[in-house]
């Protein structure tokens, strides 16, 4: 639809990543996905409270800029493909 009238504005924006949820230096463990074990069920994607699991090519990767290292993904993975690795 064309909304060409120059006085018309709508209070919407495109969602993007905010700086507020960035992990910074405080995460102590990070999830590492063993792609050879991952069956692509997306349970981790569904349960990650930060939406930092990124489905990719039938499997998943993690966006470490925002992952807080809570381990939920590791816990829900039915095939134990995600292990929590110390960062300290």
């Amino acid at each position: 639809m064309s909304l060409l009238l120059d006085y018309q504005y709508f209070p919407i924006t495109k969602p993007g990543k905010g700086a507020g949820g960035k992990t910074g230096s405080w995460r102590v463990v990070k999830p590492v996905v063993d792609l050879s074990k991952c069956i692509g069920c997306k349970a981790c994607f569904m349960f990650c409270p930060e939406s930092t699991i990124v489905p990719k090519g039938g499997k998943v990767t993690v966006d470490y800029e925002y992952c807080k290292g809570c381990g939920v993904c590791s816990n829900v993975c039915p095939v134990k493909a995600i292990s929590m690795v110390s960062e300290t």
Partner: protein
Amino acid sequence: MIRKIISGNEAVATAVKLARVGLTGIYPITPQTSIIEKLAEMKAQGEIQTEIVRVESEHSAMAATYGAALAGIRAFTATASQGLLYMHEMVWWVAGSRVPVVMVVGTRAVGAPWNIWNEHTDFTSERDSGWIMAFASNPQEALDLTIQAFRISEDERVFLPVMVGMDGFILSHTKTNVLIPDQEQIDDYLPPRRQPYVIDPEDPVEIGNMFPPEGYMKLRESIHLALKNSEDIIRQHGREYNKKVSPMIDYSTLNSSYRLEDADYAVVLMGAWAGDAMEAIDVLREKGIKIGMLRVRYLRPWSEKEIRENLEGKKGVLVLDRSTSFGRGGPLYIEVKSTIRDTEVKDIVTGLGGVTVGKSDMIYLFSKFVEGIKEDVTWYYPKEVGKLDVRTPRDIE
């Protein structure tokens, strides 16, 4: 088209049906309840497909309607009085989001104290919220204006919600002859819904998130301009309604006039009591008093042009307000007085909380006005009011 004897509320329900509304957010409040009862009945009998969402408050009724509208569905709700006040926050959210929605308000007094009868204060108190505000004077207009409301609201030059006011009980519950358009006529008049954006998981948008001051102010100006521009668009859709649906009531203007052209004096009012005023005008005309009436059909947009054209040059203008802006008189009076210059404007506040003002009262008020009343705002009681038996429960020391 067929003729049917129905109430204002049934006329509104019929308009909702004809407009093929997809969702109605409902919470019953007197005197609007029978609109949603009628819709529920139509739904039960399979006459309409509307999703009827029952919620726990008016705030939620508007929120549900808003949500459906954001998702791209033609949505409707109705309310009155305390209910409108309760949804006030959502009323602003809908206008600020620029999403088309239609609501009918069965006007009613606002407490305290409790009073279920008619006045316009609930309606007029929303006049700064960015909604287009129409006001019906009979059930036929309630039906016609509700259908036109969807057309106006969904016009890309507007994209603002529309509320249609209707005098509680006086119109909502009394039955009269109403011309009901055919579905084909309305389908021809009302094209499929258009709106500025939708919520869509495939292409997400953030709605109403934090805006910096300048951006926020620009959005406010956008509402202001869309509301101002809607004036011509309302006339355009009104003419089209006259052509495609019914020529019975002239919708080519935002206000309606009666015996005004050659009149020395003018009366301005809004709503159902226009009928009594017209009869009173006929009586005074027979006595040689040249008086006419301008009935406000759209409080927003406020057509300065029409008001000036119709009222400037008159010897005097009397505004009848069925609502209050405490300490200032009536909202309609304030609007009229700020629009016309060089013409004397007086105000009568009356009819609040169901006080009956009929033809004989109008004859009295209009003649008194022509003779020359002194005060700017007069509170008029048709009957003697005895000493009110109200007091504080305990004397303050």
